């Protein structure tokens, strides 16, 4: 199972949990699994998130594969000026 | 509204136009004569983007009325190059990458030409104070000052 690390921001709606193991094949499945696991997540939570999969950062990459031994870190998306 | 008939010279050409009393020279240049190279950044004389010369004197065209141009000789950015030959300042601005968005550039070029006409051999500080009426938000002025100093050098034949 992939190790999923949530940013501190989401702790308020995950009952304080910041880490979870999930079996997911890609980013889209990860977001679906999180929504099921944490009903308190805001509806649009995925729109605000970037992911780092094994150290590589992705934004808006729903089909990016996640391996079973991957470490995935979720944090807020970045835009800029 | 009554419109006034005005005759003037713009970049060496005789022009005639009609304008309302409250119309600025900037408005006339842009909207009556369709010379849109002169830009409006503030309309209060603070940014210098609308700089032109009137009878050789540098002015913010947003602070002068169109009717005041009667009988005057006006130079704008459109008249700066001679045929295919860019003015030395225009060339130096390109070579030194002294412009980015370019909306302040016509005003800077008009101001810089006036500066060098009055002082062909300015120091860095004189260039900075000479151009202090023109705002540029992109470049930090570094390359503009370099370009003007380099143009002055070339124009002096040094």
């Amino acid at each position: 199972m992939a190790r999923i690390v949530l940013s501190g921001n989401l702790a308020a709606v995950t009952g304080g949990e910041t880490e979870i193991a999930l079996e997911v094949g890609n980013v889209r499945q990860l977001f679906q699994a999180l929504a099921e696991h944490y009903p308190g997540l805001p509806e649009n939570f995925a729109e605000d998130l970037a992911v780092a999969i094994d150290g590589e950062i992705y934004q808006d990459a729903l089909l990016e594969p996640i391996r079973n031994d991957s470490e995935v870190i979720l944090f807020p998306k970045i835009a800029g000026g | 509204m009554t419109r006034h008939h005005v005759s003037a010279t713009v970049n060496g050409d005789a022009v005639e136009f009609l304008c309302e009393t409250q119309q600025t020279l900037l408005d006339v240049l842009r909207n009556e004569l369709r010379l849109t190279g002169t830009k409006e950044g503030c309309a209060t004389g603070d940014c210098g983007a609308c700089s032109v010369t009137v009878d050789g004197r540098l002015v913010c065209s947003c602070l002068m009325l169109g009717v005041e141009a009667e009988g005057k000789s006006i130079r704008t950015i459109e008249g700066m190059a001679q045929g295919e030959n860019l003015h030395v300042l225009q060339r130096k601005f390109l070579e030194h990458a002294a412009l980015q968005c370019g909306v302040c550039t016509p005003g800077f070029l008009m101001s810089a030409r006036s500066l060098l006409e009055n002082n062909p051999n300015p120091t860095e500080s004189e260039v900075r104070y000479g151009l202090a009426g023109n705002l540029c938000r992109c470049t930090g002025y570094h390359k503009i000052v370099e370009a003007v100093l380099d143009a002055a050098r070339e124009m002096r034949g040094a």
Partner: protein
Amino acid sequence: MSTTIKYEPRELKVVGTRPIRHDGVDKVTGRARYGADFDLPGQLIGKVLRSPHAHARIRSIDVSAALALPGVKAVVTRDDFAEMPEEYAAAGEIVVNFYDVTRNVMAREKALYDGHAVAAVAATSEAIAKQALKLIKVDYEVLPHVIDVLEAMKPDAPVLHEHQYTQLVTPKPDKPSNVAKRLEFKRGDVEAGFRQADLVVEREFNTKPVHQGYIEPQACLASYSEDGQADLWTSTQGHFVFRAQCAKLLQMEVSKIRVMPTEIGGGFGGKNTVYCEPVAIALSRKAHRPVKIVMTRDEVFRATGPTSGANVRVKMGCTRDGRIIAAEAVLNYQAGAFAGSSVSPASMSAFTRYDVDHVHVVAHDVTVNRPKVAAYRAPGAPIVAFGVESVIDEMAKKLGIDPIDFRLKNAAREGTQSYYGPKLGSIGFIETLQAAKAHPNYRVPLGPNQGRGVATGFWFNAGNETSCALNINEDGTVSLVLGVVDVAGGLRTALAMIVAEELGIDVDKVRPSHSDTTELGFNFVTAGSRGTFAGGMACVVAARDAIEKLRQRAAKIREVPVDAVEWKDGRAQPIQGSAHRFAPMTLAEIAKVAGKTGGTIAGHAEINAQGAGPGFATQIVDVEVDRETGLVKVLRYTIAQDVGKAIHPAYVEGQLQGGVVQGIGWALNEEYVYGKDGRLQNPGFLDYRVPVASDVPFVDAVIVEVPNPNHPYGVRGCGEVSIIAPMAAIANAVESAIGIRICEQPLSPPRVLAAIEEAAATRKA
């Protein structure tokens, strides 16, 4: 799908040189056309009526007298814009709450700031339009307002939005608040960290809102036709995003709106979002004539931008030998009238330059009765860097450690775990510290009342959706059609250079131009320093697509297998070691016969670029303080920044120098000044003073190049990092000069003089 192309070191012919920009001659001769330079036959002039109140309920709007004025062809108010649900929706990739966006474009129930649009007219002349505005009767019920961020956070503060409850707090709040959102990032145990520290410094900082200050006010021209289609010319950082926002707000299909990006007279984040564009289209729809709206400078200051003013508390602890153990920050950022300040990236950038085990950051996004903030170059980062780098300066000073050495001891490097999420990849922070330390400016002797300050900056940089097309013309020249807007940094030339490098031709054979929204697929706004990174990646993909087709075409023409053909130095030639010999064909030779050998050749890219490389900078500034007037004069300035790779070094220097001088303005002069009535008192360049040429010295720009492993040329992006450190560097330099640490900015003469006088009074007492 997402695209990353790894860094490929190689010999370069075009990249790294300094050709003249393609838009240069048009810009020095006055030919270049900006937002206000477009006109259509029969066009009307649009003007916007703006609220004079900071906070007021709009009871009614009577436009009948305005409509009756001869020459007035249309008036629009809140009734002409559809209600939008309270939900975050993606439009053009920016997730925004259209409930808020439609209200910012045109006030509905309430006017929320001085300058808030309340109605708009289109008339046959500007004079008539202005006269019509005076005839619109708005019945306001003036409400108490709040401007300051800390005031707005108090429980008894006037609330802007009765439906706004603080997000991401537990338990869910039971009453509405101006605090729209609370963010928190944690690593380690910050309290335990402080207990281990030998030295703890804690300070509170306050900054004012500043405006992006682009010289070209927002301007657009819209033409809506009876078949429901609209054309829009506008000065924008992203025409596809503007199309998306207009379509949503006006309930039109995306394909019905065509947006032509004009030359843009500066943006810096301020032209990422629509203001007058939907209004112009709505007016044109009603008037059946084209409508042009050009904002005045007063409107730009009162109703667009700015960036947040903020209150920031920073506490840091380190060991005796200068190792930072714990770091804590609370960030309170003004969002303006609607939620969504830059506090999120600010809180993620606060300590990311350093390797710290124990970190805790809490941040609040706070609505106040000011214009909704917009992005401004590294949004939010300069404010928090001012706090963090000031505290670090104080720690280094107290321990007697050189400020650059102190930072070197703690600097983030490849593999450093960030407190907000990922580990940092390959970065060049240490290299910038070393370059700054080695610069001769670091050793220039200082005189009386002079001081030197050091500070650093970090920015994430971004990738995102990008497309381009590269058409090979029949004479072998290349037309490069770009979907990312050249927001003035020289992007189109940098991208043409990349295409020339890939194809092996001269850069003057490539002519770059902007697409309109019908010519390419979606492109995100040029923001997050992504232009050269993501645009460059797209150009590489498109060029390689074209090269593949050129190889195939050459193979067909020469009647050899395609794997016998390689592309090198601008021509198709026999691959080394291949048994197939044939006469090489240049790009121009293939192009000449392309039509008769299968058709014209083009390359395309439609990508979502991933792998943006973070950028770091170290800055050194020397100042002199006039103790009689409080004037701070900047004597010399040095910036060393890691840009990954400078495609066009002169344009990169321009980004570094330009960002620094904007930062100097933020530090020394610029601020929004409000009266007790909640009205902005300085909406003009006379009283809102951006730096002029005589305010600043030359800025020595040192380009550091540690390649981004996730870009074919190693590009990181360079536009934003430069603005982050100046506020802190200047504060540190002023402290060195006069021995007083001033934690409020701008350091304008009255504020500095007051600090000097207060210090003198304290000494006497």
